[in-house]
């Protein structure tokens, strides 16, 4: 069980390197940052315990990585296949972040502010027609809003499909939900009725 957070903690290191390279940093700078992450005591400790923080850090790093790739691709050639790929991956990783912990909403906020800045820049560019600007807006709305919501809901659906039986954590759920679980020990009660 510890291998999962440990593996995610290991995978964060090359992501940091590649993100910095994508931001036009030198290889030496990226190497130094990666070494800092390798030997950072808090990150090491988080990676060695069965906690949700390690997936959160990994998916946050993944989001920053693919968002950097998308921003570079946006300067290169919008609406190309790689452009759509990076944008969709950003949406999927945003869904993974917020599925790990709700603290991931701050990552969504960060990407959202960057998106607003991009759209604002495009809005002030007189060479971009209104029709083209709407295409930019709709593409970002689809991939950065709809895709993360769908990902989040699909994760819940997977949980409902897998965890269909009663367990120790039933007390955290509502009575109506507990009655949907198999083997629940909650006695049926009569519903109140007006006389």
């Amino acid at each position, binding site marked *: 069980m510890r291998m999962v957070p440990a593996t995610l903690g290991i995978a964060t290191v090359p992501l940091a390197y590649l993100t910095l390279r994508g931001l036009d940093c030198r290889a030496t700078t990226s190497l130094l940052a990666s070494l800092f992450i390798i030997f950072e005591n808090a990150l090491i*400790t988080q990676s060695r315990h069965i906690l949700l923080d390690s997936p959160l850090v990994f998916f946050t790093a993944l989001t920053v990585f693919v968002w950097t790739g998308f921003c*570079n691709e946006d300067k290169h050639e919008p609406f190309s296949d790689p452009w759509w790929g990076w944008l969709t991956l950003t949406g999927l990783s945003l869904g993974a972040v917020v599925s790990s912990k709700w603290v991931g909403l701050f990552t969504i906020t960060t990407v959202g502010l960057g998106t607003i800045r991009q759209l604002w820049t495009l809005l002030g560019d007189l060479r971009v027609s209104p029709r083209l600007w709407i295409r930019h807006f709709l593409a970002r709305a689809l991939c950065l809003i709809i895709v993360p919501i769908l990902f989040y809901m699909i994760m819940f659906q997977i949980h409902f499909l897998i965890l269909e039986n009663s367990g120790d954590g039933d007390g955290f759920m509502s009575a109506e939900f507990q009655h949907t679980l198999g083997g629940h020990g909650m006695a049926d009660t009569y519903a109140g009725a007006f006389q």
Partner: protein
Amino acid sequence: MLSGAVRARRPPSPPPSYHQSGPRFPPKEGHLDADERRAAASLGYGPSRKPAHASGGYNITPGEWKLLLVLVVLASAVRLFRISKPDSVVYAIPLLYQSTFRRADQSRTLKIPDSTKSILASSPPDTSRHDISWTFTPHWPNCSSRLRLSYLGLMDSLISQRLQSRFLRRFKGTCPNHFVLVLGHTKTRHTWLCAWSLRPSGSLPFLSRT
């Protein structure tokens, strides 16, 4: 007061055989004229005039992929070492020397203070406390450097920090362009000194227990 007799003189015309080989003002690299920019905008390109990035913006050389592999192996070693006992972590105390170069051709030896010696002497006798050090030259991308690893024995992190501060005082200014790292483990207390020289000809500092 100027009189009407003063006339501006036209510069002499080039000879008939003169042909200008190129434009008088050659365009800058990456520059787009108005028509090209309008055409680019119609395709949805951004306003930047800078040279376009590669796809996704990630230009990773083959040497860097090897470097990434080394980083992943190092991260795996740090994170997976004694993972069944997660309360202990591999710690590192880095120091980066950027001072002027003075005596890089001369190795310096640091003597461990008496307080450290007494603690070292109290460590279990069955543990080997001899120094192991070796030097090798990794094939770094565009860089030739040397790396020396020295096994320091059993220390706790506090002693390592003291040692590190003493090391800094002793070697400040004498071993420039070195990246020195003390690696240790909080539970087993095995401690290593890692010195990385950016100068292939420069000698590396080392620690001695004598």
